[in-house]
């Protein structure tokens, strides 16, 4: 018996001893939130700064400093829990290298200046660039960590005042495929279900999602659900490497990268073949369509793609699925035909509730929109959607990727309500903004990848980034790094800490971080979460919303930005809310949001909508229809027949390994915050490469030894991790991207999904050598 088995058995043997709580009768929810006055600790609510789960935390303040964090017991998301990042988050605010003042590059050196002077320079330079090169030579690049007011004023400033659609956000790199997936299938963005599904479901199917590390608090809720329903509740892991999640799952199926497309189709094949289609639901609420195939990878500059879809019937769909029998897909994916049938049976069983969860595995995918569509297909065939405990659910990585980027619409083609291409939507936005409608250009300009390519080429000369770190996160980093360093480019960076992006800046604006300002985030489940300013920002650090307002006013847009400093967050949010009136997207009023850890939209008549498109829960659904996918004109969701197509770059004789990049539980994204938290840095000090145990043995690589990875774009030396928390299958490696000294994105490829324009960070080819 190996050690692991032994420990498990030992644990089982003792499982019937010791009750969990020896002292019952305690309700901590009500005893500890006392209004503490005077010299003691005061607790204030806030959403966690880090991931898209959006845990509610209570921040303990003493002597004007944030000194402690605990999970907020009244948060319906986290119910008092947190993860190691959230529970230590306040420590980052006091890192010694916080930016407390603005810096401007003079004679090649960054010199400190008063922030008002830096804002003058930003406004002047932006205006001068527009005068010389036109409106579309300036750009604003934000983030899924932008609060809702940050994103809203950015959109109003760029689209409504300057009159350029050069507005993007890093959520393009993380959630764009989820958005286009939702839009193509349902005609409206964001999940129909919510986290309450967890306590209602019987099956969790995790598509390429290491939830134990990436969405730990939600995963705890999944484990809890299984613990309370032994034998019934199953966690199924579908992944390209073995992770902590795989080990916790009841079943783990490891597939070849990119072949999730084939697996999803094989599941549909089996459901149709075994006649497990929910015909009652299907006939009333679903259309079938096909789109273009062989759609390319966006590798070349000025790549263009437009999908065209057309209706097909069930017979045509069956013919399409005939390429995806379990036996055929076993050959493509490496998952056995039996296992595929097992999976299909879980989805197909009419007496079993199923949720599907995914995040970057499906979104950072050169067929990201397709794989999102394909998982929806499964749920639509069996009618397991928009029901408590049943449904597909796209998880987000950033605290406000939904709230800000997707809902406010800080993307080149978007407006807070609708898209720039639609004249009615432009008129609607212009009216609320109080600007002439002609100012809002009707044509989208650059999505993120194209924006940085334009910067490299010189079509964009001025770029201002806020709350993001593109010089660490862009794929094929070297090109974009060199582009930003070119003559006659002006880079403004708003951040709290030095990063690889501030290293290329001409102006650095010190940012107030998280609870140093007032704001709102929106998490994965359509929940808007407000927080007050809890502590003072250091030095001259300034809220991102206010930075934009200050620059806009300096450029003459005082009428458009009239908000007084005392109430501007509330004022901006209340103005934003006007864009979402109506039962399909109404947002909770600001004063309500202050009272609760968070509230979900659509917020109609003082009530949250937990399951959209279902008449029972969603007041926007036509009475008597049962379900209505009202994003589509005919109220029907669409099954899209999307084929399997290979990745942009696959391993070959010269570069025989797959490279997948991602995160670890200790660090959040580029680590600019979490590495400044002592506990987290000590737990995970540097980037590393996970190598398959057998490969390592064959190549004579031992744990901790340095190895060199090389792709067609770059090379890097990392310490090997063998038999660590993850074990990739043979001929594949995994590297986390948090380490700014080990920039793995110098190796990744800038291939993207032609529909969503989201790059694929999960697949490219490398070779591995001992150093």
């Amino acid at each position, binding site marked *: 018996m190996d050690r692991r088995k032994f420990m498990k058995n030992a*644990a089982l043997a*003792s499982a*019937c001893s010791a*009750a*969990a*709580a*020896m*002292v*019952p*009768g*305690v*309700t*901590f929810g009500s*005893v*500890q939130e006392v209004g503490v006055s005077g*010299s*003691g*600790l*005061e*607790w204030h*609510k806030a959403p966690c700064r880090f991931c898209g789960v959006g845990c509610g935390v209570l921040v303990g303040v*003493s002597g004007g400093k944030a*000194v*402690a*964090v*605990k*999970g907020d*017991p*009244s*948060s*319906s998301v986290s*119910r*008092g*829990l947190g*993860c*190691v990042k959230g529970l230590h988050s306040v*420590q980052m605010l*006091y*890192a010694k*290298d916080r930016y407390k003042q603005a810096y401007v590059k003079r004679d090649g050196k960054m010199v400190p200046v008063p922030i008002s002077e830096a804002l003058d320079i930003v406004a002047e330079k932006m205006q001068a660039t527009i005068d010389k090169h036109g409106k579309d030579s300036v750009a604003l690049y934000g983030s899924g960590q932008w609060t809702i007011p940050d994103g809203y004023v950015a959109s109003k400033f760029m689209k409504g005042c300057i009159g350029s659609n050069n507005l993007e956000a890093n959520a393009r790199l993380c959630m764009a495929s989820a958005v286009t997936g939702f839009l193509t299938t349902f005609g409206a963005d964001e999940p129909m279900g919510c986290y309450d599904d967890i306590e209602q479901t019987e099956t969790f199917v995790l598509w390429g999602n290491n939830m134990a590390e990436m969405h*730990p608090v939600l995963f*705890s809720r999944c*484990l809890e659900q299984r*613990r*309370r329903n032994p034998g019934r509740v199953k966690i199924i892991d579908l992944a390209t490497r073995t992770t902590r999640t795989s*080990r*916790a799952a009841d079943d783990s199926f490891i597939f070849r990268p990119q072949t999730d497309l084939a697996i999803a189709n094989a599941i549909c094949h089996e459901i149709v073949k075994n006649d497990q289609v929910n015909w009652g639901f299907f006939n009333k609420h679903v259309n079938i369509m096909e789109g273009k195939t062989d759609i390319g990878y966006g590798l070349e500059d000025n790549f263009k793609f437009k999908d065209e879809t057309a209706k097909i019937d069930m017979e045509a769909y069956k013919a399409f699925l005939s390429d995806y029998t379990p036996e055929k897909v076993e050959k493509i994916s490496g998952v056995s035909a039996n296992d595929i049938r097992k999976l299909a049976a879980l989805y197909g069983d009419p007496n079993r509730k199923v949720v599907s969860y995914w995040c970057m595995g499906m979104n950072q995918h050169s067929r990201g929109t397709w794989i999102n569509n394909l998982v929806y297909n499964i749920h639509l065939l069996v009618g397991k959607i928009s029901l408590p405990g049943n449904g597909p659910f796209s998880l987000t990585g950033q605290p406000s990727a939904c709230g800000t980027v997707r809902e406010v619409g800080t993307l080149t083609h978007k407006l807070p309500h609708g898209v720039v291409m639609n004249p009615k939507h432009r008129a609607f936005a212009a009216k609320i903004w109080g600007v002439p409608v002609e100012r809002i250009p009707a044509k989208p300009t650059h999505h993120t990848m194209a924006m940085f390519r334009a910067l490299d080429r010189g079509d964009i000369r001025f770029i201002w980034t806020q709350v993001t770190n593109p010089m660490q996160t862009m794929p094929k980093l070297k090109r974009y790094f060199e582009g930003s360093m070119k003559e006659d480019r002006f880079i403004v960076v708003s951040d709290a800490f030095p990063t690889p992006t501030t290293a290329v800046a001409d102006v650095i604006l010190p940012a107030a971080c998280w609870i140093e300002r007032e704001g709102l985030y929106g998490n994965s489940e359509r929940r808007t979460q407000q927080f007050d300013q809890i502590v003072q920002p250091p030095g001259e650090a300034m809220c991102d919303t206010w930075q934009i307002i200050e620059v806009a006013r300096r450029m003459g847009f005082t009428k458009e930005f009239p908000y007084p400093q005392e109430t501007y967050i509330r004022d901006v949010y209340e103005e934003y809310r006007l864009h979402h009136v109506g039962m399909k997207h109404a947002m909770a009023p600001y004063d309500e949001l*202050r009272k609760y850890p968070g509230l979900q939209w659509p917020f109609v008549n003082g009530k949250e909508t937990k399951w959209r498109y279902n008449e029972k829960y969603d007041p926007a659904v036509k009475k008597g229809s049962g379900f209505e996918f009202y994003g589509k004109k005919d109220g029907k969701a669409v099954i899209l027949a999307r084929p399997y197509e290979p990745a942009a770059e696959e391993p070959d004789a010269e570069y025989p390994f797959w490279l997948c990049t991602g995160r670890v*539980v*200790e660090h959040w994204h580029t*680590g600019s915050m979490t590495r*400044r938290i002592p506990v987290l*840095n*000590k*737990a*995970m000090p540097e980037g590393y490469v996970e190598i398959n145990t057998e490969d390592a043995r064959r190549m004579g690589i031992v744990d901790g030894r340095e190895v060199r990875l090389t792709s067609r774009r770059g090379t890097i030396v990392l310490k090997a*991790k063998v*038999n*660590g*928390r993850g074990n990739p299958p043979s001929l594949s490696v995994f590297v986390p991207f948090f380490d700014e000294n080990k920039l793995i994105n110098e190796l990744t490829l800038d291939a993207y999904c032609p529909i969503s324009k989201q790059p694929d960070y999960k697949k490219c080819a490398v070779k591995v050598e001992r150093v």
Partner: protein
Amino acid sequence: MSAKQASPLTGVIILAGFIAIGMTVLFTVRGKLQAQDQEAHAGHHPSWATAHAASHAVVEIVVPPRTAQPAFESVPRPGAKVRTLREFYSRRAYAGAPPIIPHAVEDDGVINDDCLSCHQDGGYVPEYNAYTPVTPHPEMGNCRQCHVEQIVEGLFVATEWIQPALPKRGQQSIPGGPLQIPHPLQFRENCLACHAGPQAVVEIRSSHPERENCLQCHVVDQNVPPFKSLIDTRMELADVEK
């Protein structure tokens, strides 16, 4: 703004739920509890424990048969290392933060079985000549989401973070009265995990663990702040250092 408080009604329901659980634990060996009102709890989840009681019709509580002896030996064997408050706080960023894992662990674990095989019941470990600390929340499944190993000493950049004051010990509302609990009970409902048995922290070990129903006498201090102000942080820390 301070955090939203649980409504009084919810509080009553929760309290009733807990008393029911308490009675079950105290008076029966194996009991079943029917949660009364599922709907009343929808949307309010003040704790995991309540959430279980609320959203789940049947809660099964299994309690081992009681022997005359309490579940723990009360004093460590002679010569064994005792856990001190200093050590206790050295593993936490601040009082109430999740402690780090101070020993080597396999990196691949997630499920609590591995950790619980030692940390559920505790016991003497010859390797360390010490007693394993017992977790106050063995029901939480994903240990490594909060508890991490520390594999290096250094920082990425220096920090100006100030550790907040530590809970003040020895507070009584009247002379001779029972000690008040100076910390929140969130995820620490099991007092005996830290306050009783040979693995208990020596400075805060209870003299009467066999009484078991701690909260009949000891209450969370609602008037005095759970933590002292920042001013005397260092003093208290220095105190612990000694």
